C-alpha cells in the first residue's frame, strides 16, 4: 500500500518537474528548429566576391553523387562577359532533391567549393517537378551569406569554411 503511494508520488514528482522545465518541443514552423552547425540540408551554389559563379561545370559532384541526382552541363565562358573565372562555367545545374540522400559527397568533390549543403531542410512541395532545383533555386545571391564564401581566387578556399548558419535564399 505504502509502496503504491510512494510510486504515485514519485510519478507525480516527475510530472511536476517537467511541467516547470523548458519545453523540448518547438512551435514549428512558427519557431525555427535550431540545427547543429554541420547539418546537411538543401544545397546552394556559391559565388566569389566579385559576383562570379564558383561552379565551373566540371561534373565532379555529379560523378561523386551516389544517388545520381545531379545533372551538370558545362559551357564555354564568353571571354568578354564571363560567368565564372576561367574558360568554363556550369551552364545548367540541377539537383533532384527527391533523390538526394544528403550525404554531402558533392560538396566534398567540388574543386571550387561551389556546391555546399546548408542547414535548410524544409522543402516540401506539391509536385515532383518543383523539387528538381535548378540554378535559379540553388545559386546564392544573398549578400549576407555571400561573405562566408569569399576567398581570394579559385581552388584556394581555406579549409573548414562552414556552410552558412541559416538557410540561404532558395
Amino acid at each position, binding site marked *: 500500500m505504502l509502496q503504491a503511494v510512494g510510486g504515485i508520488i514519485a510519478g507525480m514528482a516527475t510530472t511536476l518537474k517537467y511541467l516547470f522545465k523548458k519545453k523540448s518541443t518547438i512551435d514549428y514552423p512558427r519557431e525555427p528548429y535550431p540545427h547543429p552547425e554541420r547539418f546537411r540540408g538543401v544545397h546552394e551554389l556559391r559565388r566569389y566576391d566579385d559576383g562570379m559563379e564558383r561552379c*565551373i*561545370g*566540371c*561534373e*565532379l559532384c555529379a*560523378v561523386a553523387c551516389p544517388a545520381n541526382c545531379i545533372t551538370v552541363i*558545362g*559551357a*564555354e565562358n564568353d*571571354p568578354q562577359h564571363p560567368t565564372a573565372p*576561367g*574558360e*568554363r562555367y556550369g551552364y545548367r545545374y540541377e539537383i533532384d532533391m527527391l533523390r538526394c540522400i544528403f550525404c554531402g559527397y558533392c560538396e566534398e568533390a567540388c*574543386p*571550387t567549393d561551389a556546391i555546399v549543403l546548408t542547414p535548410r531542410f524544409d522543402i516540401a512541395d506539391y509536385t515532383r517537378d518543383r523539387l528538381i532545383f535548378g540554378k535559379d533555386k540553388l545559386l546564392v545571391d544573398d549578400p549576407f551569406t555571400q561573405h562566408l564564401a569569399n576567398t581570394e581566387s579559385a581552388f584556394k578556399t581555406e579549409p573548414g569554411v562552414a556552410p552558412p548558419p541559416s538557410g540561404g535564399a532558395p
Partner: protein
Amino acid sequence: MSADRPAASRRMVNVVIDGSALSVPEGTLVVEAAKLAGTSVPVYCYHPKMDPVGLCRICLVEIEKTPKLQIACATRVTEGMVVHTSSERVAQARNGVLEFLLLNHPLDCPICDKGGECDLQDFTMSYGPGLSRLTEPKLHKPKRVDLGPTIVLDEERCILCRRCTRFDDEIAQERNLVVIDRGHRSLIGTSDGGPYRSYFSGNTTEICPVGALTSKAYRFRARPWDLTHADSVCAQCSVGCNFRIDSRFGRIMRTFTRENLEIDDGWICDRGRYTFNYLYEPTRLRRPLMRRGDDLAECSLDDAAALCAEKLGPAARAGRVGVIGGGRLSDEEAFALQAFARQVLGTNNIDYRVHLQKFASPARFGARLIDIDDASLVLMFGAYTPEQAPILDLRLRRAVARHHTQLMYIGPYRPHLPVEAQYVEYTPGAIADLMMQLADTVHQGRTESGDGFVADIARRLAQAEKIIAVHNGRDPASVSALDRLLETLAGYNHRVGVLVVGSQGNARGAEAAGCVPNLGPGYAPCSGEAGMTTGEMLKAAADGALDALFIAGANPALTFADGALARRALENVPFLAVAEQVLTETAALADIVFPTASFAEKRGHVTNLEGRRQAFGQAVEPPVDVLSDAEIIALVARAMGHAESVSPQPAALLAGLVRAESAAERSVGDLLPRAKVDAVQPAAVEKVDATHRTFTIIPVPHLYSGGGAVAHDPGTAPMRPRPYAIVNPEDAARVGVVPGERLTLSGSGGSIDVEARVGPQAPVGVALVLADMPEAPANKLLDASGFGTATISKAASVPEQRSLERVSA
C-alpha cells in the same frame, strides 16, 4: 604494329619480361614485347603508328646487364634480354619523370576536356608523386589558342611529346604543325604561322596524350564518363572508316576513331568526324512537307504517304514512273528501294547514279585497301583521292613516302598532292586510248625499246611488281581498256588490282543491292527489259514522258552532270517525292518531302569501295516524325496496298538481300555484269581559241563541297570553300583576271558567280570550277559528259548572300 616498322625479320628471339618468358620477332620494340607479355609500360611520345623518338622518358625500364635504365619505346629486343618494368628503380624514375612533367602543368583537370581519359592523370595516379615540391610560381603560357578551324590549343597543358607534329609529318605528310622555340619555352604552332588547316586535324586531338589539343566541336560539351557509345561506320565517303559515335542525353557530342587496320588504320578525316551538328540545326527537316502553290507546308506522315500513293499508283500503271537514289542509303534501304521500284511500282527505272560515276565496282581484279600498302605503282585517273577518299589517300601518302610506291596521276589538270607523284596530263576522253596503247606496248614487249611517254609509262608498269589502279568508274571505255591493260600485265605475272572510288558513301552497296536499271540484287540480270538510267529518266521527265519521280538520298539538281537538264526535269515532272534530311536543291522542287533519319539514327550495313559490308549501330533516336528511308519506303508501299513487298525492318531486309545475293551468285560468274550506261561518252576536252574569253570548264571536287548535310553543318562551315574558278596565269594575263575578284561564268545552262583564282594547275584555256556548291552550281555550265564551256566576265555586283534558312521550322 604497323606494317612499316623496320621489317621484323622472321627470326625469333627469347626474352624475359617481368618474369614471363616469350619469344618475339627480332627487332621488336621492348614496349611492344611488353604488351605481348601482358604488362603495360606507360608511354607518352611513343605511338604505335609512328617512329619512336624517345622524348618523354616515361617508359624507362630496367634491362639486366645494362647499367642505366633504358627507354622501352626505342630499345629493340635482343636474344636473352631480361626486362623489369616495375622494379624499385623504375618506379623511382617514373615518379621523377612525372614530377618534371607536372612541374609547370596547370592541373586544369576539372575544366579540361581530356580529364577522365588523360594519360597524364592516369599515370600520375598510378606512378606519380602525390604532392608537388615546387614553391616557385609556375611558368605561364598562352591558353585558349585558336590553332585552326577545328582545334583549340592550350600551351600550358602540352607536355611536348610531339605526337601531333609527328602525325602531321609522318602520317599526313603535310609538315605544317611544328614545335616553335626551345626548352621549356617550346610552343606548338604552324610552320607558316597561319591556321592549322588539314583534313585530318581531328586525329591530333585523339593522339594528344593530354588536353593540349582539343576539338572545338566537343569543347566543354561533356565529360568522357557521360557518353554513351555506339559503333558506327562513316558514310560520308566510300572508304567506310570505322568510328564510334558518343552521345549524351540523346544528342551526338563527338565521334571517335575505332581502329580497323584494314580500312582506316585508326584515323578518320574531319568531314567524317565533324559532320553531325547539322542534325540539330533549324534547317534539319523534322516534319513531312507538302507543296501548296509555291510553298512547302508541313503535313502529317499519313497525308504525305497517301498523296504519294495516289500519284504514284496511276503513274506506275501507265509505266511512267522512275526512282532515283540509293547511294546514300544503307544496303538494306537500297534493297528496299529497288524492291519498291520493281515490285510495287513495277518498273526497272531505278538508278543510284546521280554523279558521273557509272560503275561502283571493278568487274574483275577487285583490290583491298591494304593492297595499297605494298603496291609498287598506283595508277590514278578520274578519281581524286585527296578530296574524295581522304583516308585512302592517307594510306597512299604513307606508301609513297615509306615504301617507295610510285604514284602516277593521269588527268586533265595538275593535282595538288603532298607526296611525290608523276603527273601525266591527259584529256579524260583520251585515257581509254592511252590504256589501249599501254596494253599493246606491254603485250608486244616493246617496253624496253620504245620512246615517247607511252613507252615510258609502259616501262614503269613493266618494272612494277604490284600495280593498283584507282579510278572513279566514270568512263566505261577507259574502264574496259584498263581491264585489258591489267589482264595483259597479269599475264606477265604482275600482281594487279583495282579500287573504284564511289561518288556517294554507299555507291557500291547500292549497285550490289540492285539500284541499277538492268541488274537486280547481287548483279543478277533483272527480269524484264532494262529500265531507264538517271540520265534517261531526267530526259524523259523534262520532255513530259514521266508522271512521277521518287528520289531517296540523292540531289541530282546539284550533282547531276547536266544541271540544266536535271533542273528542267525536276521542275517539269508532275509529281516529285523526295526523302531527305535537309532541304536540298532537289527537295526544294518536290511536291512531297519526307524527313529521313541520318546514319546515327538508324542501324544497318554499308558497303565500302572494296565491297566490304560493314554493320553500323544506332547511336541516337531520330525526332518524332522522322523515319528511316526503309520505313518511309515501307510506309508508301503500304499506302499503295503492297505492305508485304517491302519490310521496314533492317534485319528482314538484310535477310532478303543476302538471299537474293546468294541466289544470284550461281548465275553470275567471276566477271561482274556491268550496269547499263547512257550513250554519252566523255568528250575530249578541247583547247579553245586563245584569244577568246571562252574557257573549257572542268569541275573539281572538294572534301567539303556538296549540298546536303555538309552545307548545313555549323561544324564544317569554317572549312567550307567559297566557290572559285582557277585559271592559268597565262590566261589570267590575257583576259585580265585578278585573283580574288568576282567572276561570272556563263554557259549553256545559266551563269554562276565565283571567286577568281590563278594557278598553274589549270591548263591554258581551262577553268577549274569547284563542283557541287549550292551557291554556285558548276553543273549549270556542264553537259552530260561532265565538261562544258563558259565565257568569263567580271561579276556585275556583289553576290547576294544565300541564306540557308530556307524552310520555316
